[in-house]
């Protein structure tokens, strides 16, 4: 039986799943009491969707355009600050910028639009600074891209990493205090009320990234990734497309930065270090370099693990095991070991470079019973293969030992190991295939 669905049904199914998910998130956030363990699920979905967006934007660069860039945390930082600065309510400025005489911006876009348009103005007032965040980061990405994108592979990674650190230091600079509050935190800015907000924004952004990847531009990006010289020979302008991919990736990193600012409710430059970039990279690698669905799955798994499942590793007790090793920071050690194991044994990640599709999903579900049935056989076979390999190894060892003994014996008896060939003084032709001895 052919389980393929036509496109209409697939779209309907996807839409139904998404709506169901949205409804769950929306009502889940309203109805679940704070403090219950289910609340953690909502938090994971919130933070996971933000990281899914930034991981997808990083994957666009690393997985689809082949540019190994490590600047994502720096770009998120700019996005977060841009959003926060323009949405701090007017009467909170004196409190937030207490060391800088209330700062230089004394108004909030949210308040201005809210007073004119009411509730619609409130949301518009959140969306506009977010868009500004994205655009500003895109502009900065554009400027950084001009020199940096002439570099290749590791050099590009080092340069982008350097820029990210410069950005972080720049935002903590005291002279910029009236704007960025120096090294103090920004707080009291407008945040979303329901978890559905970041989920929707991230969802729409990821959908745009997916559309981009499947467009002509996306094909050009992938051509550049696979072979720059061939791509150039096909008439693809390398620099233009790399710059485009870099700018778009920066834009979405900016948006996710703004969302992260809202999620955290306070923001400072300190946590946007290279460690954060590596976390994003970890998500991309776990999910599969070159798969957006992989990045999304990886983001949720990573967030769930770090915020929820592995919390105990820092707290001294995890799954009933307690050890003096488990003190704050131990989680990071576990993650480091995890990424090494993944890179060594599972470097394709969860999704490899494939995307989710309903056809693939149903085919996978259908193949499960057979796979489960075949599993013992498979295991048996792999065990037998391992056994055989061990046997071959030990046999070789034994042979070597025996040869050594024989050699000693022969040496004492003066007898040769082989008979030399007869080297004739004329040309010999071997008619029969194979042997000449």
């Amino acid at each position, binding site marked *: 039986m052919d389980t393929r669905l036509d496109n209409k049904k697939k779209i309907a199914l996807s839409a139904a799943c998404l709506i169901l998910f949205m409804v769950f998130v929306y009502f889940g956030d309203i109805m679940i009491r704070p403090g219950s363990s289910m609340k953690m699920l909502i938090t994971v979905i919130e933070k996971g969707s933000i990281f899914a967006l930034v991981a997808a934007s990083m994957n666009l660069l690393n997985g689809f355009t082949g540019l190994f860039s490590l600047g994502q945390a720096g770009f998120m930082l700019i996005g977060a600050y841009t959003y926060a600065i323009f949405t701090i309510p007017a009467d909170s400025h004196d409190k937030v910028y207490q060391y800088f005489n209330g700062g230089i911006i004394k108004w909030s876009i949210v308040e201005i639009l809210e007073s004119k348009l009411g509730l619609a103005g409130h949301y518009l007032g959140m969306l506009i600074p977010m868009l500004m965040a994205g655009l500003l980061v895109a502009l900065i990405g554009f400027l950084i891209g001009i020199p940096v994108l002439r570099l290749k592979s590791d050099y590009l990674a080092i340069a982008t990493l350097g820029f990210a650190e410069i950005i972080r230091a720049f935002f903590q600079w005291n002279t910029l205090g009236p704007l960025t509050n120096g090294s103090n935190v920004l707080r009291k800015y407008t945040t979303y009320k329901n978890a559905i907000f970041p989920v929707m924004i991230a969802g729409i952004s990821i959908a745009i990234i997916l559309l981009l990847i499947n467009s002509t531009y996306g094909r050009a990006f992938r051509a550049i990734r696979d072979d720059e010289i061939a791509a150039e020979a096909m008439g693809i302008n390398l620099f233009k497309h790399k710059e485009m991919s870099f700018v778009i990736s920066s834009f979405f990193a900016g948006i996710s930065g703004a969302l992260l600012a809202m999620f955290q409710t306070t923001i400072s430059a300190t946590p946007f270090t290279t460690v954060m970039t590596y976390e994003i990279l970890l998500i991309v690698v776990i999910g599969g370099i070159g798969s957006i669905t992989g990045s999304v799955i990886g983001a949720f798994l990573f967030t769930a693990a770090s915020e929820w499942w592995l919390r105990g590793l820092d707290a001294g007790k995890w799954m009933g095991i307690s050890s003096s090793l488990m003190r704050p920071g131990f989680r990071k050690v576990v993650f480091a070991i995890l990424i090494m194991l993944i890179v060594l044994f599972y470097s394709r990640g969860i999704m490899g470079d494939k995307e989710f599709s309903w056809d693939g999903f149903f085919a996978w579900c259908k193949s499960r019973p057979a796979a489960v049935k075949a599993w013992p056989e498979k295991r048996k076979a792999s065990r037998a293969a391992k056994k055989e390999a061990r046997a071959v190894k030990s046999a*070789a060892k034994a*042979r*070597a030992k025996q*040869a050594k003994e024989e*050699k000693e014996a*022969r*040496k004492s008896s003066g007898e*040769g*190991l*082989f008979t*030399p*060939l007869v*080297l*004739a*003084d*004329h*040309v*010999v*032709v*071997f008619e029969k*295939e*194979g*042997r*000449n*001895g």
Partner: protein
Amino acid sequence: MLAIRNLNVHYGGIHALRGIDIDVPDGKIISLIGANGAGKSTTLKSVMGLVAKSDGRVFWDDTEITSLRTKDIVAEGIILCPEGRRIFPDLTVDENIAAGAYLRKDKAEIARDREWVYNLFPRLSERTWQLGATLSGGEQQMLAVARALMSKPKLLMLDEPSLGLAPLVIKDIFNVIQKIREDGVNILLIEQNAKVALDISDYAYVMETGVITMAGPGKALLSDPRVQQAYLGE
């Protein structure tokens, strides 16, 4: 001496070597000629343990080296000078040569062998501080041979030393190969350039699609009509 018996190699489903028997007696230059893809390089690589053998045995004097690891085979005194030179481009000539003595510890002897290879290739001794990449093709081939000799081999296996070189340079290199033999190193030579190889070989094997089809003294093969037609273009 080196003795290869019934050597078989498979690359996946492809049966690349189908029962090769070759002897390299002491004090002789033996060559293995044949067209592209006949299995010449595979023969050398499998002797060195760089390619897995599916059947057959390899003997070195009174030792069986069939299942030894490459580094142990080198320690036994067999060295492969690989196809396409493969010198270290970012090391100087001197460093390249020192790298050839990697497995040796006898400093005084290493110094003596360095003198020896510089005497064999005076061109290199003029360029000890030059980076490998800056040498000409012929000089790079000389460097590759010199580097191989620094392991103090009893058997030198050369894979296509004439590849991509001008006729005059080829002549130079083959003169040195004869000198190396006089210094007591056995030589197993692989060549597509059958004429130069047969000219200096004491004995030669002709290989076709994984099988030895003819054998004989170098000069006799050189004048053999079948060899002339197939490999000498006459």
